[in-house]
């Protein structure tokens, strides 16, 4: 795992940055929200893919691409969390003067 991260750190950092941006804009985004069912399906799909990766079911290149995808997805999610949280802390926290909001 550490080798994979070390070798692809640029792409993973990119995924994290993308996640950060997505997370940052999500509180004010007007896109359609995922339904609860959609969220569950997505979660199940991620768990299934994680299982595939951990049990090393896919051989060779597909296995590598799956691992890379999951790591990038993880970095993306982390970026989303940080982005949303930072926006909340900096701009949306209750009690904060309204004129300071960008």
């Amino acid at each position, binding site marked *: 795992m*550490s*080798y*994979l991260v070390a*070798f*692809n750190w640029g*792409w993973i950092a*990119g*995924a994290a940055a*993308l*996640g950060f*941006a*997505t*997370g940052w804009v*999500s*509180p004010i*985004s007007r*896109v359609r*929200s*995922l339904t609860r069912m959609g*969220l569950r399906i*997505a979660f199940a799909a991620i768990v299934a893919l994680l299982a595939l990766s951990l049990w*090393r079911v896919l*051989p*060779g*290149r*597909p*296995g*590598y*691409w799956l*691992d*890379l*995808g999951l790591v*990038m*997805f993880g970095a*993306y*999610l982390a970026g*989303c969390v940080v982005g*949303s949280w930072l926006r*909340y802390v900096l701009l949306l926290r209750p009690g904060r003067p309204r004129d300071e909001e960008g």
Partner: protein
Amino acid sequence: MSEFSNWVRKWWPGLIPLAALWVAAAWTGTVPMEQHLTARAAAALKESVLDKTQIEVSGRDVRLSADAFSEQGRRTAVDQVASVPGVRMVLDQTQLIAEVTPYVWSIGRDVVHVTLGGNAPLPAIKTRLLEAARSAANGTEIVDQMSLARGAPVRFDSAALLLIDQIAKLKDGRISLANTKVTLEGSAREIGGREAIAAALKNLPEGYTVEKNALYAPPYLFQVNKDPVASTLTLTGYVPDNAAHAAIVAAIGRKFVGEKIEDKLKASAGAPQGFLAAATLALSGLSRLSTGTLTIQDRDIKLAGDVLYPGASALIAEDLAAKLPQGWKQKAELTVKPVAAPVNATICQQLLTGLLAKGTIRFETGKAVIDLDSAGLLDRLIEAVLRCPSSQIEIAGHTDSNGEKDANLALSIRRAQSVADYFMKAGIPKERITAVGFGSERPVASNDTEEGRAQNRRIEFVVR
């Protein structure tokens, strides 16, 4: 919290550029990463002893195929690759090389190649054997037909290296090893090569034995040429050692009358058994020729030349055949020397006296048996007697003063009679010969010294 959950539900749009990013990462990074892992895996296997190693990386999985030389070596190699950072798993396609019985190895030589064949236990040993062959073959092209196999006997490499060293001594042939048994076939480069190789193989590692030595060496040649015009004996070829050399030169001194010796003999191993006895006997034959050549090739004796009188051919051939050591063969190609012009009694006497001045007719000590060494001189005396067919020949025996007078007289008569018998056997008519003995009555030198006594023990001829 429910606010955060609402945000999470709006994270999905980023997945589309994320997918693009992922495709780009996979597109550009897969091959370089595979190359990087291949190099690392190869580096990890650098110290391992493997053959036909192939490393193929797909993603982060390594397919390792190789021939290993031991189970432990095989496992270690797989573990080493598996522990390379970044490798997810190893597809083990390694195998142990075949174990063969009997373990066969060979080195062969023909005109243009030195070929190494059979099995070698390890690549490093194979390389070492090839290098040794290269230096032993001295520029001859090396052909490697060895394959790797397990099951070599202990100290295989030292045995093989010793055998490789012998290839320089071969003209052509093959040295092979089956387990610990060595077989040699072909021809040695030089006389004595077979023996030199056999001697070197005594240093084979313990447990190794020479099962068959079927090497041929070039023929062992010994040649003596007798040239009556220059009165020279030319000796060429080989003798086993310095002692044999001295013995042959001494035998020539006893058997030949006044010839100079041109000695070009060389000492070399490889003489057939019984060489010295056979050569001495054959030299007796040559001493009875006027001109001729004696050739000994391995165990074949060839005597060619001119005998001094008609009956001599059969006598010489008979003598050779009767006394040759076992396993030897002889061939006499003899012609008779043309009879010289007849001479009168005076000249005949001079010829006989002249011959006796150069040599003495020898007998066995205290007996009347003529020594074989005197055959050459006797044949010359017979030749001279045949030139004066109308003369009477008196053969007179003399002894030194040692011993009783009567016994000496009897011995001198018997010795003179032996010579007379020899002459008659050679074809001189009985009527022409008289044998007389004088014992010690007529000394020609002092009987007080050994030298004088030797001069007094003699046969004289009187031509009438």
